[in-house]
């Protein structure tokens, strides 16, 4: 008697890629339609973000920033995915996803205030369609699902996008969100930035699945794996997913294969779990180098441009950290008043102890 073939899916997926590490277009069919100015703007944002990240790490060491999750290496994944959205699309970020909400409209000094632990960091300006970074891994997946449900109920041609890491894909909320989006056919994009590690735990210890993109199968939604160091591939994947969402075709799971060049957080030591060889191998895939090579060949970018953007970014960081530091200090009575629409009597009484 033969045995049952207990196999659902054994084919590995191939990551979607547009640009080779040498900056050559390898998949012209998938090249997103972008003008020269747009291509330059994307490069500008990635260089700006890299510089901001380097400066933020230093500001953290100086005690001028608090909680900070480095992003270097993930610029294509973060900047590219946000660039593919419309401004009225809604972003539900995880704790590392500050670049997306800043490029979506949150002023940089407020991002710094969030890092420093100031309430004004979360006071998103009217018209900026983002939530504050989410600390509970997976919770944001459900918020994006609800936001997408609201868009669908109001027949608005908008999508919600949310981000988590490879570790986050092991959470129950991750699966629940995808599953709800499948059932209700919601305009939502779930981006998993798979940088290979959840703090010290490698991807192989999160799941025996061949990829995170495969997990879309369990929810009956579309899934795709993308080279997350290739900004053009990221833009293509998110643009198409957004179009699908707006057309009422439902949700998409996008796995972005990427790498963080820096530690998980300021308290992390990568030398305990990563090798120099691995880091060197990934540095060859640096999204900035790759995209710069592509633009240089088109005569759209030069080293001088990079140097200029770095200076601009440094100046912007300096100006914004000063603005953050000059922001009025919070008070306990102010916190009490922000708990409810109108402050109940028991909290009014507690305020008296702090005035």
């Amino acid at each position: 008697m033969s045995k049952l073939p207990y196999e659902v899916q054994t084919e590995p997926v191939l990551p979607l890629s547009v640009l080779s590490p040498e900056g050559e277009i390898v998949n012209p069919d998938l090249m997103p339609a972008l003008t020269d100015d747009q291509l330059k703007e994307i490069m500008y944002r990635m260089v700006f973000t890299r510089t901001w990240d380097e400066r933020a790490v230093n500001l953290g060491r100086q005690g001028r920033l608090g909680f900070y999750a480095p992003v270097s290496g993930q610029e294509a994944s973060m900047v590219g995915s946000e660039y593919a959205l419309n401004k009225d699309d809604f972003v539900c970020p995880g704790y590392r996803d500050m670049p997306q909400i800043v490029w979506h409209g949150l002023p940089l000094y407020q991002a710094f205030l969030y890092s420093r632990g100031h309430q004004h960091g979360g006071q998103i300006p009217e018209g900026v369609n983002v939530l504050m970074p989410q600390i509970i891994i997976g919770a944001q997946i459900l918020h994006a699902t609800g936001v997408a449900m609201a868009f669908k109920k109001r027949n608005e041609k908008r999508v919600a996008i949310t981000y988590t890491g490879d570790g986050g894909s092991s959470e129950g909320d991750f699966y629940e969100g995808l599953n709800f989006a499948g059932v209700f056919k919601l305009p939502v994009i779930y981006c998993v930035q798979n940088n290979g590690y959840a703090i010290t735990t490698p991807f192989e210890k999160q799941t025996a699945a061949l990829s995170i993109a495969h997990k879309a199968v369990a929810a009956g939604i579309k899934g795709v794996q993308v080279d997350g160091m290739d900004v053009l591939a990221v833009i293509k994947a998110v643009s198409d997913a957004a179009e699908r969402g707006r057309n009422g075709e439902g949700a998409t799971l996008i796995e972005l294969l990427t790498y963080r060049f820096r530690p998980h957080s300021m308290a992390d030591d990568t030398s305990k779990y990563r090798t120099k060889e691995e880091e060197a191998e990934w540095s060859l895939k640096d999204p900035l180098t790759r995209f710069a090579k592509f633009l240089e060949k088109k005569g759209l970018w030069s080293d001088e441009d990079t140097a200029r953007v770095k200076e601009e970014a440094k100046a912007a960081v300096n100006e914004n950290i000063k603005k953050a530091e000059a922001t009025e200090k919070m008070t306990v009575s102010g916190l009490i008043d922000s708990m409810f629409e109108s402050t109940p009597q028991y909290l009014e009484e507690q305020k008296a102890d702090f005035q």
Partner: protein
Amino acid sequence: MAQMNMKEAIRDAMRVELKNDPNVLVFGEDVGKVGGVFRATEGLQGEFGEDRVFDTPLAESAIAGMAVGMGIQGFRPVAEIQFVGFIYEALDQMFIQAARMRYRSGGRYNSPIVFRTPFGGGVKAAELHTDSLEGLAIQTPGIKVIVPSNPYDAKGLLVSAIRDNDPVFFMEHLNLYHAFRQDVPEEAYTVPIGKANVVREGSDVTIIAYGMMVHTAVKAAEELEKSGVKAEVIDLRTLLPLDIDTIVASIQKTNRAIVVQEAQKTSGAAAEIIAQINEKAILHLEAPVLRVAGPDTVYPFAQVEDAWLPNPARVIAAVNKVLEF
């Protein structure tokens, strides 16, 4: 006016608010077509459509989390968690995400959500259907906690909860759904959140209770009256914010009090109520404030429920203790 039991009054609250405000949505497990496992939402989908009243997959965290996402987009979700014991699956979304949204965003976003859930013993239900988990909720900054004890209050409080711009945990006692009928206005009306109700006046002792225990307390008070003891019974209605003023006013008159709750002794709301009495009325007390509560065990197996739950005899014993102190 119509005669309604508490379940019908709760349904009517949702009906009038679905009618009044297009942003009100009702959803949860089996709340749509069949109208809920207790029929608390029966007929609502038929009247308002699948777009407003709908079933969800079986996942409490996603039900609550989706409510949070819709809440920041201006909808007013009334999300049902089928039984109280299942709120543990949704605690992050209810008690962290919804409860902190206004604070975390400095007022930019809020969570105008009602989380409805049935709870409460005496109906021989299966495990984890009847636990009194209001104590978890009242220790959560940012969420209001309501436990009605009768049809009139249930409708008025639920209308208030749906109109409130902050999240509300709304607990519906299983044993009260069909217990009795009462005159309830058919139109929308509100009962204020945070206001207790003196349901029986007395001058010798104050009995503070909520939910099913209000009825247990009233039965005890009726018995006590036969022996000449006049007990005042306060129905708290809202546990957070707590109406400490009504409690203190009563104690100033009676100088003695007990708190009756169905939850285990070290859970629930009684300890907090006693602490506040201690802070605000100690000079009016002739005796310590005692608790009548469930013992500190896991909620009882159905077969021993009646012995475990507080009953009028235990309330009377506690009253006699404070009277004889």
